């Protein structure tokens, strides 16, 4: 199993600013995943973060808007840049252990 800690759990931010979300795992993992979940919607994958290489972004997500760091095998950050109200969502990180995925509690972001 894996225990994932996400910080902050929630935040209210002004438009035009940036927020960095941290994800800490209690074990070393090869890949970490970042998801966005808009209100009442399912999860959408933003990017996959591998240690030692650039993150791989899904269609519709770009590095300038969502820069990701992966400095080691237990930690990753996702930055939501130049925020607008449309970025108000829950952001979750996830890791796979065997055939099971584990998720953080999520970061609820509100942009005003």
């Amino acid at each position, binding site marked *: 199993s894996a225990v994932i800690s996400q910080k902050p759990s929630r935040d209210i931010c002004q438009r035009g600013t940036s927020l960095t979300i941290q994800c800490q795992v209690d074990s070393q993992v090869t890949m970490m995943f970042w998801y966005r979940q808009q209100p009442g919607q399912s999860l959408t994958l933003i990017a996959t973060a591998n240690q030692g290489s650039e993150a791989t972004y899904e269609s519709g997500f770009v590095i300038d808007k969502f820069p990701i760091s992966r400095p080691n095998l237990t930690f990753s950050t996702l930055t939501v840049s130049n925020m607008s109200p449309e970025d108000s969502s829950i952001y979750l990180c996830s890791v*796979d252990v065997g055939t099971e995925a584990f998720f953080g509690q*999520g970061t609820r972001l509100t942009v005003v």
Partner: protein
Amino acid sequence: LAKTTQPISMDSYEGQEVNITCSHNNIATNDYITWYQQFPSQGPRFIIQGYKTKVTNEVASLFIPADRKSSTLSLPRVSLSDTAVYYCLSPWMDSSYKLIFGSGTRLLVRP
């Protein structure tokens, strides 16, 4: 890549058995079927996974017919705390090890 289809919502009452069916017509030979549960303000949580026939754990049962084009998650004697969104994933990840979430089924358990 298999696409899953499941009901958007279901209602039930405490103590009833709930069956949520998921369609995955294009499932590949090596694909597993996995179900996740998500409570409000929490990340999804693994419930059960199977390949064929029937799998049972302490939380649920998963029934998969021989053609594997559908699966049914069965929750015995639901309680109010089972109110959540249930996601069927198949495959549980694609070739790049990414989870692909569909729309999920929003289950409401009433007293």
